[in-house]
């Protein structure tokens, strides 16, 4: 490539780049990792996103009684809010009994939902240890773990939920049939 060709090529590249810039508004700022870490509440079923901390059902009973019982009833039996535990019959009965124990496929969802949304009158009030403890308590009430089992970021995703295989991915199914 001669010097002249090179200059031409260089100018060509610069002008393309300018055009590209004009076609995209690019008005977003770079988001720092620190801020994203603070904002990112998502917890996945394999445990990704779970914070440090731990708790047992024993400790969780106190958290439940103070923050959850008024809406969810004694031992998760349900009141103004959903029944969470103590199913008397199964999913194939009429009506079916949908609780964490009979219906929820992943234990991590309990921690995630409680952290982001509960309690309704003061969301965000529970610290990580309280969240792990109340999650453990709900699993214990449903007969899924023992009372003294320590629930933390490593043990929670390993909890086997009875209805883990209970769901059919309709979106995937329709895509495959297309």
């Amino acid at each position, binding site marked *: 490539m001669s010097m002249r060709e090179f200059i031409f090529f260089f100018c060509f590249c610069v002008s393309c780049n300018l055009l590209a810039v004009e076609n*995209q508004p690019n008005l*977003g700022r770079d988001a720092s990792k620190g801020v994203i870490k603070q*904002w990112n509440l998502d917890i996945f079923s394999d445990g990704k996103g779970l914070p440090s901390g731990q708790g047992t059902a024993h400790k969780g009973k106190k958290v439940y009684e103070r923050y959850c019982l008024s809406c969810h009833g004694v031992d998760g039996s349900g009141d*103004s809010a959903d029944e969470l535990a103590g199913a008397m019959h199964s999913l194939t009965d009429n009506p079916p009994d949908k609780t964490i124990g009979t219906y929820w496929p*992943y234990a991590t969802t309990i921690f995630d939902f409680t952290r982001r949304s509960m309690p309704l009158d003061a*969301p965000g009030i529970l610290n990580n240890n309280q969240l792990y403890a109340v999650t453990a308590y709900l699993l214990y009430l449903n007969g899924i773990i023992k009372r003294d089992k320590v629930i933390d970021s490593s043990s929670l995703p390993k909890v086997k939920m009875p209805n883990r295989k209970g*769901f059919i991915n309709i979106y995937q199914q329709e895509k495959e049939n297309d």
Partner: protein
Amino acid sequence: MTKNVNLKSVAKGGLLDRRFFLKKGFVFSVAAMASDKLLAEAKKYRQPWMEKPGDSFSNYGQPSVFEKEAIRWTMANKAAAGNGVSWTPLQNLEGTLTPNGLHFERHHNGVPQIDPKIHQLFIHGEVKKSLVFDMDSLLRYPMVSRQCFIECGGNSNAGWRDEPIQTAVGYFHGMVSCSEWTGIPLKILLNEANITPRGKWVIVEGGDASIMNVSIPLEKIMDDCFLAIYQNGERIRPENGYPLRLIAPGWEGVVNVKWLRRLHLSNRPAMSRNETSKYTELLPSGKARQFTFVMEAKSLITNPSYGHQLDKTGFYQISGLAWSGRGKIVKVEVSVDGGKNWGETELQKPVLSKSFTRFRIPWHWTGEKALLKSRAIDETGCVQPEREKLIAERGKNGYFHYNAIVSWKISNKGEISHVYA
């Protein structure tokens, strides 16, 4: 000077040709009965409001004081005022657009009053460049407008009950509304963030007290999802997501996340509460349908419907709404004899994809018992099912995604009730 009209029926029971009024020279000659009061009023040259100046200007217009019934009914959790729904009064509305103040609401923990000056939208995860946008920046982006319906996945769920609910159509089916939304195609922002090949799902989060989140396949996001800033020409109302709402045309309401603050690109769904414990449909087998995003073809007659009364025999216009999350409505048929005979209705033009479609058909009521039904068919060939068929496929305990044909029984006194037939 009225001509006698040959009322040509298109189906038994007095359904008339849908284009009846478009035919030149036809005048409907039914003796109109007016009350004594109206006859007396008709003699007055000026009514009281014509004898003095009217009201002054207003900064924001309100409905007539005589339209007090066209309101949302609200149903909230007794222990949490912001946890519940309000319904669009479909029985009081016409056309295809829902007024902003009557758009249905579903909140998980109340309506946040978000200051747009501090609201921010994060895009992160499986992207090469994590980005954050403020509202002033977003308002400079290219925008598109699209009319589409939003329907809660739990709309019409009383239809699963053993006994037909006796309530106005809006308080049974009114968790659906239709607006012209204006905003930024999401693919523009995601292309700027530069998605990695691992990115397959987007976890979408709102900035309300419940920090509600849900996972949406990236394909849908890149296809037709957009960030709405305006609703029917004005900035979105707080109860509908101000200052920023995700619109996923044709997909269940819960994925149209309000108060949008974060888009997390991921290789898999989060399995959040709203895609596992809720918004999944339990089948008689004990298995549950999950990620059932599309709202299927549906229609209902809004007029006449429960709560209306047919006072006189003669002409009525049957009017209703149809919609499908799969695309355009191509046909809506109406029956007045419980489904034995069907007549094709006139669809209001233009018919838009994933939007409310208004259908109308004239009807001559002879004063005999009638059973009204409507049936929608969309461009993919999906036909709205009879209730029996839907229940045979899904059972009665799925709660979400009820789209069966709605039946209104009219007695020989003109009273209207909801029936399963």
